[in-house]
């Protein structure tokens, strides 16, 4: 018995919504990064499920690229968070307020 594609989409949408919720509510930069990771992986679930559904491989290959890019993004992000900690002694994203609009 195979699982229908709509279940995968529901799963990925739930994951995406959890990630988005995390971004909107968390103040810790590391939690923010994890939430973004959840959203990216929600897209990966979609891509793989749809690749299976459509019977072509481009979605699966793209998911591999997305994972690599997510890793690169985390590398840059952690560097910036490290700088944040060095300059502000905190990883709370609401602390740096030298500029206001």
């Amino acid at each position, binding site marked *: 018995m195979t699982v229908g594609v709509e279940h995968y989409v529901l799963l990925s949408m739930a994951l995406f919504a959890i990630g988005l919720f995390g971004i909107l509510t968390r103040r810790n930069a590391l939690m923010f990064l994890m939430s973004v990771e959840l959203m990216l992986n929600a897209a990966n679930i979609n*891509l793989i499920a749809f690749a299976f559904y459509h019977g072509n491989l481009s979605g699966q290959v793209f998911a591999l690229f997305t994972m690599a890019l997510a890793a690169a993004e985390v590398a840059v992000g952690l560097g910036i968070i490290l700088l944040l900690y060095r300059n502000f002694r905190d990883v709370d994203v609401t602390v740096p307020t030298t500029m206001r609009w």
Partner: protein
Amino acid sequence: MALLELPAWTALAPALLLALTAMALFIIDSIAPDSRNSGLLAGTTAAGSIVSLGVAVWYLLAGVGTPTVDGGRGVIDVLGNQFVVDQLALFFMVIVAVVTALVAVASYDYMEDHTYQAEYYSLVLLAATGMSFMAAANSLVTIFIALELASLPSYALVSILKDNRGSVEAGLKYFLIGALSSAIFVYGISLVYGATGHLQLENIAAVIEAGEVASDGGHEIADVGGLLGLGILMLIGGFAFKTASVPFHFWAPEAYEGAPAPISAFLSSASKAAGFVIAFRVFTEAFPVAETASAIGVDWALAFIILAIVTMTLGNFAAATQNNVKRMLAYSSIGHAGYALIGLAGISAGGGELVMGAAMMHLFVYGFMNTGAFLFVALAEYWGVGRTFEDYNGLGRRAPVACFALAIFMFSLAGIPPLGGFWSKYFLFTGALEAGLLVVAAALVINSALSLYYYSRLVKAVWIEEPAVERETLSQPVGLYAAIVVAAVMTLALLPLFGPVADTAVDAATAMLA
């Protein structure tokens, strides 16, 4: 002619040359890691981007990408159609290369005392490579990869002044919003892929036009209209981030203010242009207006009409209330994103190639005048005169050349005839009228009039106001001066040159919409 037929991948040479120069910088840095020879590094960067510029211009003149019926060599596909090199791609490769060269030359002075010279210049080149590839990317996969290649070095560049709190804060905000928007973008791609089964742009268009997916468990496109519509909406979010338009604009003032000024110039000109080229390509190639509208029930051009009006109004009104010059320019850059969005808003109507061509011209002129304006801010930061309008008072007496150039940039940004900025806005205006977008055309005029207020305020501060403090003679850093003067000369030289630029832009737009 067939004597010297280059292989197809060489059509990407403008982008590849930028990547190659970045590699050359890595090699230079690994040979002499402790050297801070900024002349060598900035020179290599500038030379690489000028060669890239030369190749792109040569391709344009030689007819690469021009349809064969018009006597050109036709659009060139690379890597199984993952990249295409057409006039649109070459036009934007030119913009990216020009801005990169100007920024590299200006950085020679601005980053003089910085510890991480080689890293800085190679990051600039890697970001430029990404932007150049964005111009040619023809599938959602390559678009996303090129976009990330442009974004990741930009995050690092904004926060490269590691001990400067403003720079780190700017980098953090840019990164957080960028990561969020790229997650939204890739989720949008996955939904579009789910609805159509393809990632390549013309295949997506073919499926939408046919109205059904022909794979095993095939379905009608109309049945997944909601999925497709949501996907398109999320793609628009990704473009909005890259072009700094509403609703993902709020990183722009922070990032531009905190970043080193040459990087603000780079991001607000080249990065914005690259964001627009992918938006142009995706929406003209992948989502044919009428068929997509019947599938998802809404005309996506409507979204761009709203975004254009909101973006230009918000940007200009916010710019008018600023006291900090760099921040004013940041908001004005949001306003200009709104002007360029008219190009997408008008596509669906007849005469869409004129508006889209006008948007491309505007981005081209903007590449000079806005880069020049931010480089003037870089010069002011180099002098250490302060950041507000009052701090700029009376600079004209001490540095007449640079301040004259600033006046040119400001009046061109405001759209005063006969400067380049006027002509591109004029074409946007007539194009919008022809496309029947009266409200958009009216918003353009009102916003331009408003923008004259805050642009001329800066010119007035520099030339007419009395200086608050008596100043010593200001130094004349060679690189910054050269970059500013070149940008000013090009802004003026666009008067006689505007014809060919406009022709190329309209040709490119016509080819895309055909």
